[in-house]
């Protein structure tokens, strides 16, 4: 897509992937952060990590397995929370531990069997060796996330405001919530190869947190968060290749830096000290 502008194919693929991933994750991040479900990013990324480990263990496609396992975990979050009468955050913590245990168990077992499974690509990502199909998949999930917010905007905004009030209003909260979980699962699983399981959390949470420092309404947050994520990611890819630095951690650090600055400069916290 960006080939006419960027001659180097590797840089071009990395930039495209980072742009799509950051837009999808930051849009979903706005919803997640308002619903106090930030740990969903952590859980889903580790579910994708465990799924990829299962895929490798079975000799299949790691990414397909990552998506399948993430979706299975996403399907469990809502019903388990409802059945166990637990806060979604507690369910996420249980599923995170389970995912991590599956991943570590399989990696350790394969090392013991002499098969040698490298987990570093899954943990830290690898923007250099991306296939075109992966970028198309990321573009699709990016469009899906935008489409989801546009189509269900009124339901999403009501749920973000207050889940119980939304339910009492007659909004089909569970349906929208479950769709949201599935889209997060796919986005995280597909982004795993780019930023890795450990850093995907940054793309989900940080751009929305930066936007919340300046935005007074949710509509502007949905615009600001992806713009911030896109700008910082694009700069991170350029800087990473220009100065031979690891791209994903660099993007994570840049986003964290922007967050720190935004907290210091946020006018939402200013107190009017004028007497008249």
């Amino acid at each position, binding site marked *: 897509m960006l080939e006419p502008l960027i001659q180097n194919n590797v840089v071009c693929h990395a930039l495209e992937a980072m742009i799509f991933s950051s837009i999808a994750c930051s849009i979903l991040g706005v919803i997640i952060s308002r619903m106090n479900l930030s740990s969903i990013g952590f859980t889903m990324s580790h579910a994708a990590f465990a799924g990829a480990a299962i895929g490798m263990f079975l000799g299949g496609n790691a990414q397909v397995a990552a998506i399948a396992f993430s979706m299975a975990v996403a399907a469990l979050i809502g019903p388990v929370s409802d059945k166990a009468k637990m806060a979604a955050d507690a369910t996420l913590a249980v599923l995170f531990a389970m995912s991590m245990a599956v991943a570590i168990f399989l990696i350790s077992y394969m090392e013991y069997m002499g098969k040698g499974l490298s987990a570093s690509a899954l943990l830290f990502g690898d923007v250099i060796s991306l296939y075109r199909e992966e970028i198309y998949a990321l573009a699709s999930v990016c469009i899906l996330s935008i489409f989801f917010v546009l189509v269900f905007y009124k*339901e999403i905004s009501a749920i973000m405001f207050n889940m*119980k009030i939304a339910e*009492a*209003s007659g*909004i089909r909260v569970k349906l929208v919530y479950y769709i949201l979980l599935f889209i997060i699962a796919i986005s995280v699983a597909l982004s795993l190869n780019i930023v890795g399981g450990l850093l995907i959390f940054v793309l989900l949470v940080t751009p929305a947190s930066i936007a919340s420092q300046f935005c007074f309404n949710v509509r502007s947050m949905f615009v600001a968060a992806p713009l911030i994520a896109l700008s910082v990611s694009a700069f991170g890819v350029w800087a990473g290749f220009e100065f031979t630095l690891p791209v994903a951690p660099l993007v994570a650090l840049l986003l964290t830096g922007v967050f720190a600055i935004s907290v210091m400069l946020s006018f*939402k916290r200013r107190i009017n000290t004028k007497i008249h």
Partner: protein
Amino acid sequence: MSLIDLKSIYTAYEGGDKPVIKDLSLDVDRGEYVVIGGPNSAGKTTLLESINGLVKITHGQANVCGLNVACSADEVRKRVGYVIQNFFFDPFTPFTVEQVVMMGRYGRLGLLKHPEQSDYDAAQRAIELVGIEDLVHKTIGTLSGGQQQKTMIAHNIAKEPEVMMLDEPFSNLDFYAREYLQGVFKEIVRKGVPILMVAHAFDGLPDIPIHLIVMNRGRITYDMSCRASEVEDIIRKECKVKG
């Protein structure tokens, strides 16, 4: 058939050793002003949440607006306004009063439908009726408890419900706001929409016949019409509280 028709319903929470509501029957018709009183943990809020399907009815039959609550809870909630008892909005909640009132229309609209001019008009009428025009552009988290309460009442009026349920709607309001809103509720009832109001303070009730329900330990102990001035005395007597 009554707009609310409960026949010997029971409700229980998961893990609870006893039903919260036991063998409760209730009929509410159009244009009734129902006041529900009783001591703490009598089951008043649970009754409201059973009517709109937020709490599952374990036995008995509940029909609201001609719909079976057990089968069509989502549909019932689209037609029933419900001002909940406790809510908290953090100061950074990124929604203005105008947006929150408009959200009252969303359930009625259903999935994949966008608000039309008539929906914006209904929200505007609710804002004017409750008297919060000066707050519309403020974010809800920055308002006082009373202003938030008024916003939530407007949110439910904008819905144009067939039944309006209010759970302690005056808990954060001063005397003037209570008196003003009682006038608003009287007007809603006059249009034929029944109001079910759980309350602990009864000053300023409108001077119209009141359908008084007194609950104790999950059962209705009093279900009669009375004058507004009699409500407090009857509740005290029923709950055996000395005046």
